[in-house]
């Protein structure tokens, strides 16, 4: 795809006002890997500008929120910086940021740790014994963290995974549940109520509030799931992951 066509299909990015302390750079309205990668690449560049007055940046599926103090950094100045950065390249052709990390996370599929696996087999047209392999076949990208502390939305799964969430809410799924729907995988960092379908669980904890690095997964990171047995799940050494900062 040429530069012109990428922006024509997905863009152009639009700069919007987001409250009196926010500027939003919207790369699209839907979740698409190209839009999401543009957000991650742009986030890295905005962060590198290290503008005095920027409080934090918040990448999502489709946009980057820049929270800033308008009494330190004038909106017009920030907008000009952002527009200059936007004009520099076709962001929809951007490669994932070089500093993104790769994770291999063990998952115990089915049984008590994946109560909805049978239902998901029906929805995808897979046999029950194929679900684990199909789900872990492709590396996924952390498209956004949100909803609750450390909860990662990962995408994008093939089209057979394009089924809706449940209509009823499961009051509590555990931290580490592997939840699927709408071609995405959700990995919560805490126990949460959810309408997503649980096919497995990882012993990896993405959110460790008392640790020096409380959040292990960052927006844009690559995640590979690896099917493991109940025994391997029980033997997983999360403390070692925290010590080494990788998995």
């Amino acid at each position: 795809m040429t530069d012109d066509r990428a922006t024509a299909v997905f863009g152009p990015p639009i700069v919007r006002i987001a409250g009196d302390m926010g500027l939003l750079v919207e790369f699209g309205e839907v979740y698409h890997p190209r839009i999401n990668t543009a957000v991650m690449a742009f986030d890295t560049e905005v962060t590198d500008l290290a503008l005095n007055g920027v409080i934090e940046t918040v990448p999502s599926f489709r946009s980057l929120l820049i929270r800033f103090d308008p009494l330190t950094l004038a909106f017009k100045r920030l907008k000009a910086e952002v527009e200059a950065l936007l004009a520099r390249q076709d962001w929809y052709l951007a490669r994932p940021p070089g500093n993104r990390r790769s994770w291999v996370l063990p998952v115990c599929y089915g049984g008590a740790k994946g109560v909805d696996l049978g239902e998901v087999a029906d929805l995808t047209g897979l046999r029950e014994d194929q679900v684990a392999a199909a789900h872990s076949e492709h590396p996924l990208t952390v498209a956004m963290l949100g909803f609750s502390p450390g909860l990662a939305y990962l995408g994008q799964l093939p089209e057979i995974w394009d089924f809706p969430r449940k209509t009823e809410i499961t009051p509590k799924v555990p931290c580490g549940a592997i939840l699927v729907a709408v071609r995405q995988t959700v990995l919560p960092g805490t126990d949460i109520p959810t309408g997503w379908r649980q096919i497995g669980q990882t012993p990896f904890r993405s959110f460790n509030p008392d640790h020096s690095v409380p959040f292990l997964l960052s927006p844009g990171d690559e995640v590979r799931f690896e099917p493991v047995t109940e025994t391997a799940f029980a033997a997983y050494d999360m403390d070692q992951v925290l010590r080494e900062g990788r998995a």
Partner: protein
Amino acid sequence: MTVGLKILSITPGTTVQDLGRTGFLRYGVTGGGAMDVFALAEGQALLGNVVEDAALEFAGAGGRFQATGAVSVATSGAVMSLKLNGAPVGWRQSLRMETGDTLDIGAVVDGVYGYLHIAGGFQTSRVLGARSTHLRAGFGHVPKTGDVLLAGAPKRSSNRVGLPRSGYFDQRVLRVIWGPQSHHFSEDTRARFAQAVFEVTKMRDRMGIQVRPDSGAIKSAAGLTIASDAINLGDIQVTGDGTPAILLADRGSSGGYPRIATLITADVPALAQIPTGDSFTLEVIERSTAVDLLGKFRATLAGLPGKTAPMVRDPRDMGDLLAYNLIDGMLRGDEHDDN
């Protein structure tokens, strides 16, 4: 020696609040912090605390507290019935408590969120850089009967001071600016929204407030087709049935419901203190005007220590406090509220 307050009883929903957390939105953690940061600043001004110090936030009713040593405390925000060793005391003042003194904080009589501050701030555990209790995320200390909440070192010696009631408690026109998703609503819908009278419903908590417009449902042309992105403090979200909700301190960090406008930062305390069942209207302003108002708001907060006035008499020495009309706070008579 470390002193503090022992909780003899407490109303569920009471939380510890400071200015909240910054820098973790990208990991799904919203700021949290006091629902009324103006009231938080009032308490710091009354006690000479620093802006980061933590207070207890009450939602509707308080509790009973006993001093474990000589401490200075102060109250702010929503006016609540208050007794020191059984004798009524006015709100929005600092008070000296001796060992064993008890403070009874009853029901709210004006506003929604009341605060109890202690000189030096409550030293509960910090999570992600703040002491704010975030019930939904499981962060911070949840105050319960039997706890002893310790105070930090006071920054100055205690002198009894009070602050006048601030005008934002009566503010019923809230300022908003159009937001990044306003274009998902038709011009007609936006006009109806801007002119509507909104009633504050009982569906309210630290996450946000559902409001009922007299204009009928506010619907978006986008429906539910837009993917989630970051939610700002004060964003006004419209769910499928057309009910707007204004998202506040403990909101989710992201969402996919269309958002029609954003409440300005300076008016968040005013909204937080509007009683359930009361109504308000909106005024749509420009972003640059909102920034001017933010500057004024911060200047007012910074000026609060200078607004404190010495209490003429100690309430311990006063026989019939209500006769002095102190229930609404300290009124010197020669000051006016220009907040």
